[in-house]
């Protein structure tokens, strides 16, 4: 932690912005700017909790920070908590994309957003685009076809074409297919390409952004 004034960390309950002691509001503002620009991905729409360990920061100043975060970085401040010295260890030492994605998930509730069902196979040259939520396809997505969703993509057949989940930058989005052999797969701004001669495995698989910040594919058992 190069600058230990402000730290953005991912916890089980979401993102925390930890502000350390004895600083002026200007110094805190600058540190926040630095910490956020360190992130290699947009945090747009994420919800954070501010953990204040800064007794010198006044109540009005905290409220100012809150509106600043909202306006400048498009972050939603869940709460502002005054903390004791003891801060629990974060789930990941560095805020990896995966950790942030998981943390951001608290603001991306799958259950509350719409999903669209496509009750047929999507053939070459055809596209389905659903930025509002998840796509569920009762068929195949063939080579040359493209599916894009703001949320997850679930293919109850073979995914052979291109799929892009989380098109608005949602890194917690996943792609699930009975037969996952896409030409190209994207989640948020992460891309993975099909290894040459990839054969179908005969079981459903799930693709998501892993802890190492790459798209990982594994056997789908349950969510």
């Amino acid at each position: 932690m190069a600058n230990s004034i402000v730290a953005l960390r991912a916890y089980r309950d979401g993102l925390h912005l930890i502000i350390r002691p004895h600083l002026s509001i200007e110094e805190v503002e600058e540190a926040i700017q630095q910490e956020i620009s360190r992130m290699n991905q947009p945090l747009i729409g994420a919800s954070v909790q501010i953990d204040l360990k800064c007794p010198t920061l006044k109540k009005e100043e905290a409220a100012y920070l809150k509106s600043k975060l909202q306006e400048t970085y498009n972050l939603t401040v869940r709460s502002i908590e005054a903390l004791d010295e003891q801060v629990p260890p974060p789930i990941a030492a560095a805020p990896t994309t995966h950790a942030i994605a998981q943390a951001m998930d608290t603001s991306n509730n799958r259950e509350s957003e719409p999903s669209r069902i496509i009750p047929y196979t999507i053939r070459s040259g055809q596209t389905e685009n659903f930025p509002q939520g998840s796509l569920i396809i009762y068929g195949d997505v063939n080579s040359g076809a493209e599916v894009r969703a703001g949320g997850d993509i679930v293919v109850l057949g073979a995914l052979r074409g291109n799929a892009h989940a989380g098109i608005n930058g949602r890194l917690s989005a996943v792609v699930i297919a009975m037969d996952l052999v896409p030409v190209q797969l994207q989640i948020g701004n992460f891309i993975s390409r099909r290894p040459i001669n990839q054969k179908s495995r005969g079981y459903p698989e799930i693709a998501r952004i892993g802890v190492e910040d790459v798209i990982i594919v594994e056997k789908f058992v349950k969510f």
Partner: protein
Amino acid sequence: MGKVIVVTSGKGGVGKTTSTANLGTALALLGKTAVVVDADVGLRNLDIVMGLESRIVYTSMDVIDKQCELSKALVKDRRVDGLTLLAASQKNNKDDIQPEQMKAICAKLRTTHDFVLVDSPAGIERGFSNASAGADEAIVVTTPDVSAIRDADRIIGLLQHAGIEPINLILNRFSPQLVGNGSMMDQADVLDILNIDLIGIVPEDSGVITSTNRGIPLVYEDASPGSQAYMRIARRLTGQRIPIPDLEEKGFLSNIVNWFTRNR
């Protein structure tokens, strides 16, 4: 009232013209009346494959331009009863014909023939829209390679969108040896992707090339495997139920697959 069937593929050179010529001839050999229509305006081939090149006086363009009656433009094949060809103009291009005009021609032809087979050009543009405009049914021809299959998939999507039904598949240039040693997709793989009914598998057959060059469709030659395959497909088109024989090299498993393969 006959059926209008468009023979199409998306990708070029996969065997549309060969299939149209052989199926038209085979249907006539089975006692049906058939007309093969070349819709590949500007790049016509069907007349050559049928060996009727030298007898063309009028084309569909002349019919559209009211230069002659439709019946006069039909070239009668003298080798078999009930078979005629409507040639495409070689001077014009595909934009010189409207889908509505092709539709009108097909509608007339179906009143006098059991089968109207339209040989579509490659591609998804105007030539394809013209060829499929008057069709009730479609035969999609593909070879067992990924690019032909992707294009076939594209065409199937367009045909479905146009409400053309049924859409049957011919798997052409199939090589049991190559499937046997794992370097060619087998029919199950192809059907898994395209998900339409298979009406026949035509093997790779060097006889196709010699017959094309001589202008004598392969189906006149009984013994050739390609000829037999086309005869079986023609029978299926007339409604006979003939199982698709196992063209694959060996294997109990592929026999079972064939057994369960949907056919008509």
